């Protein structure tokens, strides 16, 4: 029976490869610090492998989401003990402060890979991506977590509720509010998807 098959090393590696980029971006949206996000993802991977590396492959996604959430919470707790927790957009904006440079970097490969795409389209696409990222980062934490788990990680309502430790009704409420907030914010910026 497939769900009972223990994860092989190859399966574990492929699973981590499939989630690592999304996990990194999610952590960046939460902690607004790229270095911290990398540390959080690294810790999460290590904990999953060390403590649950012998679990069935089907259980890995849920376990990883729980571990990632816990590692993110731990990071916030550590920050709180060091100094008062601030949630301004300052750090995130500073990370984007060299946004012009990032934009050029981001544009470099798409132009190579999509030769038919004009530079204007690529620039516009990158701008929309950044705007979406900013709006997601600006969402309240629980809404953002629910939205990203539910739609980006493609977890169902029950799984998201279990991972977040709340009721399914709360997940639906968080997701709905997140979608409406994003819709409103992006519409205000003249962005249509």
């Amino acid at each position, binding site marked *: 029976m497939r769900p009972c098959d223990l994860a092989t090393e190859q399966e574990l590696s492929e699973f981590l490869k499939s989630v*690592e*980029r*999304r996990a*990194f971006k999610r952590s960046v949206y939460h902690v607004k610090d790229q270095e911290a996000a*990398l540390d959080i993802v690294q810790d999460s*991977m290590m904990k999953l*492998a060390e403590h649950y590396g012998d679990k069935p492959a089907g259980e890995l996604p849920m376990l990883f989401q729980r571990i990632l959430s816990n590692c993110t919470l731990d990071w916030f707790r550590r920050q709180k003990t060091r100094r008062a927790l601030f949630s301004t957009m300052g750090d995130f904006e500073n990370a984007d402060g060299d946004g012009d440079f990032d934009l050029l970097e981001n544009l470099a490969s798409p132009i190579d890979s999509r030769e038919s795409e004009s530079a204007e389209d690529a620039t516009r696409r990158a701008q929309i991506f950044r705007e979406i990222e900013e709006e*997601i980062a600006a969402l309240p934490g629980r809404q953002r977590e629910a939205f990203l788990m539910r739609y980006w990680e493609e977890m169902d309502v029950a799984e998201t509720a279990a991972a977040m430790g709340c009721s399914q009704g709360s997940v639906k409420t968080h997701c709905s509010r997140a979608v409406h907030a994003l819709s409103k914010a992006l519409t205000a910026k003249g962005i249509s*998807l």
Partner: protein
Amino acid sequence: MNMSSITAGETLSRSSSGSHPPMSADERFARRIVSRLSEGTQELPHDVVERLRVARTRAVSNRRRPTRQVTTVGNSGGEAMLGLGQVWWNRLGAVIPLVALVAGLLVISVVQDDDRASELADVDSALLADDLPPAAYADPGFAQFLKSDSSAR
């Protein structure tokens, strides 16, 4: 520019108009957003991708290995029996040399005790069978006699 036909505003209006199930419209909009996010994650800076790769490799190398017994039980019953038998053979293989060592030491001890007892018995019997009575060896005069006799020779 590659744009979808439904804007965010339209999504909201459709949700509220009730022509589609509200969650369905929300979900479509959400899927478009995460699709853009997924597209963006494919273009992460090289150093970030590399650090993620190193972290993944390190994590996999530190992976918790499934125990042998768990694997055996997870398979068929016959293999489970074989696995248990194998465990018993391994235990016997470790215990048998220890038992042999202890038995050998006991045998050596018993044999040495017997040899020592027989040697003492031979000495005792020789003393008792001799013409000279054993009490003579405790006599100081006889000892002096033996010394003077050997020096005279």
